């Protein structure tokens, strides 16, 4: 199984305000009654984009200036809460292919990497700088450079970002979905099973 390496992603961006944006907010549970991930894109951030009467809210995601954004910019603890992979799946299907945040919740981070969506961490000051640049000019092109661990904007910002080594390795080598490697170690798995007394 040969997967594409992901050395970088480039696109327009949108800043989503708020700390601790949880996976219930990213994809409300009532939209998770499904047996596939198809169609989840239209429900991403549903209760943030629409009020209880179904009317569009004043939120950056509804701002036509950011309608072509494929990079999401956020604050601390992005993706906290439930382990639901439906969250990064709905973001991917909505049109996002990269996230820049101050910090990420662990399970969300792992799920996103497995879906080849690079998630990188920037300092609070740099998040503000990116946000300001994008708000001043929504056509600002952002590049998340996984190889160099930098985020660059067409406006001239060049920011250092971080991500766990294993996630970076996985994206650069095209092994962001580990299934083949896990399968390849079948003999070692059987040996471990034989060793463990409760298995």
């Amino acid at each position: 199984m040969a997967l594409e390496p992901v050395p970088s992603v480039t696109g327009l961006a949108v800043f989503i305000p708020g700390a601790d944006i949880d996976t219930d907010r990213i994809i409300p549970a009532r939209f998770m009654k499904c047996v596939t991930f198809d169609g989840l894109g239209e429900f991403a951030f549903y209760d943030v984009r629409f009020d209880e009467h179904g009317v569009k809210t004043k939120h950056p995601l509804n701002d036509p200036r950011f309608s072509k954004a494929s990079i999401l910019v956020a604050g601390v603890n992005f993706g906290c809460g439930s382990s639901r992979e439906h969250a990064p799946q709905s973001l991917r299907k909505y049109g996002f292919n990269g996230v820049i945040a101050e910090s990420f919740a662990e399970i969300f981070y792992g799920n996103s990497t497995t879906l080849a969506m690079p998630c990188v961490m920037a300092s609070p000051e740099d998040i503000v700088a990116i946000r300001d640049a994008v708000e001043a000019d929504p056509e600002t092109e952002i590049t998340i450079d996984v190889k160099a661990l930098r985020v660059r904007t067409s406006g001239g910002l060049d920011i250092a970002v971080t991500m766990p080594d294993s996630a970076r390795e996985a994206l650069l080598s095209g092994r962001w979905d580990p299934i083949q490697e896990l399968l390849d170690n079948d003999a070692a798995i059987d040996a471990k099973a034989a060793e463990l007394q409760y298995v």
Partner: protein
Amino acid sequence: MGKSLFQKVWDAHTVGTIADGRTQLFIGTHLIHEVTSPQAFGMLRDLRLKVKFPQRTFATVDHIVPTINQDAPQDPLAAEMMQALRKNADDFGVTYFDLASGKQGIVHVVGPEQGITQPGTTIACGDSHTATHGAFGAIAFGIGTTQVRDVLATQTLALEELKVRRIEVNGDLAPGVYAKDVILHIIRKLGAKGGIGYAYEYAGDIFDRMSMEERMTVCNMSIEGGARCGYVNPDTKTVAYLNGRPYVDMSDFNATAARWLSFASDADAHFDDIVRINAADIEPTVTWGISPDHGIFISENIPDPAKANTALEKASIEEALAYMKLEAGTPIKGVKINVAFIGSCTNGRISDFREVAKYIQGHHVAPGVQALVVPGSQIVAIQCEQEGLPEIFRAAGFEWRGAGCSMCLAMNPDKLVGDQLCASSSNRNFKGRQGSSTGRTILMSPVMVAAAAINGSIADAREIFHMDATATIA
């Protein structure tokens, strides 16, 4: 230098290292439910693979099952998910505790009561509250759907090793302070993201004295503090709880028990961080906002953004207050509630219902409040029935339901309507969590939920139920 339980169990289950540096970890026990498994089984079928260890895979239905008229979900999407699980369990030879089995329930209640959850094991499930099973000295954590596929296909996962933070709670808890208050307090102190990259080891006098069910309540909410897993070292209570349970190998129980106890952290174990909390400092705690770390004591006032330390904190408090429609700087006591919910994988076990039943006789749910009591499993429900608990709840105006996740996350008919405010024994108070995009959640212990239901507003259970020193637990 000695090892922590985390290190012992991690090392014992390490199969190898994969190219990106992550560990390939053997997952001894795989628990599945109807929400995060259909796509994973679909992926398995696409890859033309079988479940590698069907005998280590156990399924139940909990999130979407209704708590009344359980056999006939009105929702066709829910029915489809239940059918998918039935078909996948049959096709792949996986044990399925379905509604007809008498063993169905919330997956994190079913694992322990069946004796499937055991010390020194690794346990994974497509649900972040899998951390619950850590109460038994297991390394148990939530995973995403693609990872569910990995476990089904290989019985392993690619994972980063965690650091370990030991959280000691020593001294004595005051009357009316429960395990739920302990974990809400820990999350308040360490923050919703404090545990990222860590496993939490809960230790000290309080945990030594807690029952297994109380330990489960605490471990359950580890993820709310950012910690993917949390555990309590196994001891004689762990052994006694598991003795004779269905999935425990009883052929040489003394040897098994000795092996289980050997997984406990060594006295000279290395920890990456140690936090010490004085039990006497903990009071009954409720959340006021939209994050599980927004905890305050029942006697405290709702935070005031004007007194925030940073601009970010100020904005955060303002956002929460606006959503919760609460007034800054006012007491949390006396906030009117519309709905009360006792249940969930946090507090849906027999000891939770016994404790509430102790206090509510002679009281009645306030007019206008809908109060639901949902047992965590069919077995818990039967136990409650044998002890006459449903009658006590009904006499006091509570609705007694069938087992399931119910109103914790509203993927089933139990949902808030509009901006109803719910006093809840569950684990998350995020915006819209309980099914309405404007619904509001206040987290607390089951006894505090009962007090709120009876009072019609957030109340101090110690006052409502005239608790004295005998109300001390642990």
